């Protein structure tokens, strides 16, 4: 490097001189290079200008901003504006007192200008550009500091010691002119005026244009030379500089020599450096042929790339020059030719001996001239037309240029936008938090908070998961505990129920004992009976209180049973109250005892039972009773089995609408009985219950369904039971139809109740057969059982049995038919046979029979009697008995009718006789 640097001045010694020689005399135009350069650089490289990014702004809008910087020579101030086109600068930086700085650790291209008042941070696009700027600024500052002495005076004082500087000042114009090359070599398009709008190519255009001017100038010179020296044609570009070179040889060499020497010293002062650069630039201009050296000199400060670029540039320049020189040579050849022609013509003219010849010659010439004049004219015209087309072209070109300009503007604007955007993007990327605090910060903060939230949520989730796991285990534990407790509770309840049952039994036995004592003592021992009465009273009261408290706490049996019937019959008669209590207690004990042992297996069997199909097993199950949850389904099925031949869709609705259109004669009776149906059942006594209305519709529909029966008292009970179980009124209606029309014999509910009366006689026969002892006892006391049992058959025990037994009877009854009624009627007597046999008075027996059905509490026992003890019980026998008794009854009825008729006849005849004897009506009646 150093070698190259040292070599440079020597080899380039010829070049600078030539320019200085051309300049020194201060002769205006005929300078080839300085002239065209000056013109081309007027707008361009003279100025130090270009885009830089300035770091500035306040608070949140701090950031890098692209600014157009340009240097003002006169004030030594660096101005900057937003764009190159802006008329007024935004601000200025006083370079005179500024210090420049660039930091290694900073970003590429960042440098600082520190003035006493402030620090400006700037950023060039590349490191190269930054270095360029720094150098230039240093140089400018240096220039400013050195310029104050009047420029014209300095040239002579140049020898005073700061040679290079002096030299600079002398060749200031030249130096500046050479600056033109610097921007070309240094970051292309980044600095200089062209950077504002037109990048590099514009420069080339300009210089090409200049070549044309150069040629013209050369032509001018040649002519001048020719006129001066005749036909001397040497290339003027090479001639004249070289001729002047030696004169100034010393000065540039001196300056050159001084600079390399200083360089190694690495002086911190900017001045020598800048001068050095300028020197190199000068050298480059001066010696076109010494590229290597020049470039080598350059490489001291520039990179290899730069060097190549410079070389290429140089080659380009030289090629251009060569071309222009060749053209010049051509032009000179032409000029020479013309001159020779002229010379030849003149010599011919001179050679002509005679005047005539001369005249001829002249004439010839004149003709020639005229010819030429014409041609000139034609050419003129041609030229004009050409000029015209040229102007047109020019216009076109202008238009195109304008267009190009427009496009360029657009492009520029777009580029700017892109620049800004990309700048922003990079800023955002590089310094998200502090550099662009507005949106990115917000977004960032948002993002961060989101992330934080997510973290929180994750935490929460984990916590919840743990919690969930814990709670699951907790639930598991608690469930286990609960199950255990429930089991215990159940066991306790069972035990309790058992104990309660036992207690009930003991109590009932006690009460029964009291009752018997009371009866036995009668009126005899008044003291004893008084005591007894007291005991009974106490027992009644105490029990009532206990029962109520019991039922509140433990017992599942409330005042009403599951179908809404009162559990304790409401007997008003004092002596029966005791019995009612006893009975209720017994029912309860049986219920409690039966819960575990009987009901559960039954429930399981029912649950296991699939579709309902008539079978022996089903028959057994039905006899044992259907669990409540299955009863509606089972009854529906049973009813359907019986009425499917009668059942038509919409039938019930049709019957109802018929009832609405016209009042059935039975409607009044139905209405009368409606509120009197099951006064011991809450579903029929409650004012808000829907059951009475349902019942009315069912009964009315039935009265239309079967007009021969219409309504018979007792049907209300049947329908009510059906409603209580099935709930749905249409089902209840069909249940009623099934009982009346398919299960019961015909005429059971008709006007004469014939079949019912027949059944009473059948029952007498059956009782005589199955329970002969009892029947003998009853006969002895003249007790007519039909007074009691008639009701049983007509309403299928609805008034007689407690509901849980009643419904079991019905379960079997709906499946097996009237046989079941007989079986149970017999069973009821068998169940209470001993009690009845004990009674020795017809009145007592009647009294006992009035309520004894309700005292039956052990449904299993009753069922066993009905279906086991009463066997064999054949339908054939029943049918036969019915037939026999029907015939007998009908015969009796006929007999009765006959008797009636006879009586009426007798009475009529007697009345006739009496009327003759004027007897009173009373007497007649009495006699009758």
């Amino acid at each position, binding site marked *: 490097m150093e070698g190259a640097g040292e070599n440079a001045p020597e080899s380039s010694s010829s070049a600078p001189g030539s320019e200085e020689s051309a300049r020194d005399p201060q002769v205006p135009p005929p300078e080839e290079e300085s002239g065209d350069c000056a013109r081309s650089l007027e707008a361009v490289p003279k100025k130090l200008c270009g885009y830089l990014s300035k770091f500035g702004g306040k608070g949140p809008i701090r950031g890098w901003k692209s600014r157009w910087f340009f240097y003002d020579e006169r004030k030594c101030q660096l101005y900057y504006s937003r764009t190159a086109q802006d008329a007024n600068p935004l601000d200025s930086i006083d370079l005179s007192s500024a210090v420049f700085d660039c930091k290694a650790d900073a970003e590429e291209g960042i440098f600082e200008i520190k003035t006493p008042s402030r620090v400006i941070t700037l950023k060039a696009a590349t490191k190269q550009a930054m270095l360029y700027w720094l150098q230039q600024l240093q140089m400018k500052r240096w220039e400013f500091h050195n310029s104050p002495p009047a420029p014209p005076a300095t040239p002579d004082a140049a020898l005073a010691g700061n040679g290079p500087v002096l030299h600079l000042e002398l060749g200031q114009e030249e130096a500046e002119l050479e600056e033109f090359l610097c921007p070309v070599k240094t970051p292309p398009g980044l600095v200089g005026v062209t950077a504002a709008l037109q990048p590099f190519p514009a420069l080339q255009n300009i210089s090409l244009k200049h070549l044309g001017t150069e040629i013209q100038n050369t032509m001018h010179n040649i002519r001048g030379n020719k006129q001066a020296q005749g036909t001397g044609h040497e290339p003027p570009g090479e001639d004249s500089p070289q001729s002047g070179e030696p004169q100034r040889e010393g000065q540039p060499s001196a300056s050159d020599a001084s600079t390399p020497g200083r360089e190694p010293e690495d002086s911190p002062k900017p001045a020598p450096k800048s001068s050095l650069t300028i020197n190199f630039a000068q050298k480059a201009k001066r010696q076109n042929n010494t590229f290597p050296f020049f470039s080598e000199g350059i490489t001291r400060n520039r990179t290899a790339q730069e060097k190549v670029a410079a070389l290429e540039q140089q080659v380009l320049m030289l090629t251009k020059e060569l071309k222009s020189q060749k053209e010049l040579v051509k032009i000179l050849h032409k000029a020479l030719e013309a001159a020779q022609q002229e010379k030849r013509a003149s010599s011919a003219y001179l050679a002509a001996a005679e005047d005539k010849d001369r005249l001829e010659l002249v004439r010839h010439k004149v003709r020639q001239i005229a010819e030429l004049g014409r041609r000139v004219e034609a050419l003129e015209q041609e030229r004009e037309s050409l000029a015209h087309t040229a102007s047109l072209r020019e216009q076109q070109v202008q238009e195109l240029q304008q267009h190009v300009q427009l496009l360029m503007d657009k492009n520029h604007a777009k580029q700017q936008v892109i620049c800004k955007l990309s700048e922003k993007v990079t800023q955002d990327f590089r310094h998200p938090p502090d550099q662009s605090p507005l949106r990115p910060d917000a977004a960032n903060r948002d993002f961060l908070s989101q992330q934080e939230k997510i973290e929180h949520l994750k935490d929460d989730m984990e916590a919840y998961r743990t919690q969930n796991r814990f709670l699951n285990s907790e639930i598991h534990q608690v469930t286990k505990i609960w199950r255990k407790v429930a089991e215990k509770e159940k066991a306790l309840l069972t035990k309790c129920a058992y104990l309660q049952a036992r207690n009930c039994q003991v109590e009932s036995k006690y009460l029964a004992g009291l009752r018997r004592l009371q009866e036995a003592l009668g009126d005899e021992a008044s003291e004893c009976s008084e005591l007894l009465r007291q005991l009974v009273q106490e027992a009644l009261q105490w029990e009532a209180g206990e029962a109520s408290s019991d039922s509140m706490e433990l017992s599942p049996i409330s005042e009403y049973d599951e179908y809404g019937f009162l559990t304790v019959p409401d007997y*008003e*008669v004092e002596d029966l109250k005791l019995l009612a209590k006893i009975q209720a207690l017994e029912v309860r004990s049986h219920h409690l005892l039966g819960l575990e042992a009987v009901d559960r297996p039954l429930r399981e069997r029912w649950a296991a039972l699939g579709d309902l199909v008539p079978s022996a097993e089903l028959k057994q199950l039905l006899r044992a009773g259907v669990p409540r949850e299955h009863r509606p389904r089972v009854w529906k099925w049973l009813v359907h089995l019986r009425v499917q031949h009668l059942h038509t869709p919409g039938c019930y609705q049709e019957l109802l609408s018929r009832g609405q259109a016209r009042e059935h004669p039975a409607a009044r*009776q139905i209405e*009368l*009985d409606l*509120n*009197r*149906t*099951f*006064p011991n059942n809450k579903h029929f*006594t409650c004012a808000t219950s829907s059951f009475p209305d349902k019942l009315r519709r069912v009964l009315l529909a039935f009265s239309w369904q079967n007009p021969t029966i219409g309504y*018979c*008292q*007792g049907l*209300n*009970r049947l329908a009510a039971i059906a409603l209580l179980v099935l709930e749905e009124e249409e089902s209840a209606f069909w249940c009623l139809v099934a009982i009346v029309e398919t299960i019961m014999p015909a005429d059971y*509910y*008709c*006007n*004469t*109740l014939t079949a019912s*009366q027949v059944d009473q*006689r059948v029952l*007498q026969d059956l009782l005589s057969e199955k329970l002969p002892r009892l029947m003998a006892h009853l006969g002895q*006391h*003249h*007790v*007519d059982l*039909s*007074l*009691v049992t*008639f*009701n049983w058959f*007509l*309403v299928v025990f609805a*008034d007689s049995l407690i509901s849980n037994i009643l419904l079991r009877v019905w379960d079997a009854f709906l499946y097996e038919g009237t046989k079941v009624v007989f079986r149970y009627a017999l069973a009821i007597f068998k169940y209470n046979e001993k009690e009845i046999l004990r009674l020795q008075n*017809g*009145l007592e027996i*009647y*009294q006992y*029979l*009035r309520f004894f059905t309700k005292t039956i509490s052990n449904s299993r026992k009753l069922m066993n009697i009905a279906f086991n003890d009463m066997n064999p019980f054949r339908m054939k026998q029943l049918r036969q008995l019915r037939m026999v008794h029907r015939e007998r009854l009908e015969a*009796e009825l006929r007999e*009765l009718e006959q*008797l*009636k008729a006879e*009586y*009426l006849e007798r009475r009529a005849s007697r009345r006739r006789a009496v009327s003759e004897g004027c007897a009173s*009506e*009373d007497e007649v*009646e*009495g006699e*009758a």
Partner: protein
Amino acid sequence: MMAIRELKVCLLGDTGVGKSSIVCRFVQDHFDHNISPTIGASFMTKTVPCGNELHKFLIWDTAGQERFHSLAPMYYRGSAAAVIVYDITKQDSFYTLKKWVKELKEHGPENIVMAIAGNKCDLSDIREVPLKDAKEYAESIGAIVVETSAKNAINIEELFQGISRQIPPLDPHENGNNGIIKVEKPTTQASRRCC
């Protein structure tokens, strides 16, 4: 010791006139608006003193609906007295009463004491049967007549007291077919026979 005479009394009358309510009031001194309609019959007893006797009424309450009439003979057979009830607010029930009277005259025990009770006299503002008509009719058949209200306990006791008075005093020469049943001597009539 006072003698106890057992008197079989049956209640007859149209449906819903209040037969059971009268019995309930008399026996239990209790009234329920909705007593279940009687099917067949219901049996109750009540003992009331009458003179130097105790009358134990064996009361057979019957079903009112007409189709149960065929069962009535079972109940009025052997009765010392019959209480025939009508509803003063229902003319129809008075016609039914007349039918019952006729039937008793034709098929009832001889010397049966008939008492006519015009029930629901608490509803006299909607009365359909004038007391006069009832009195005239009762007179014509030699029956006692009284308007009652089981609901308000009007004339219920009086009704049975009237019956008690109509029962002839215990006669040592009684023939035993006048409907008076003695405890010691129950009738040997076959209960099953239908008239």
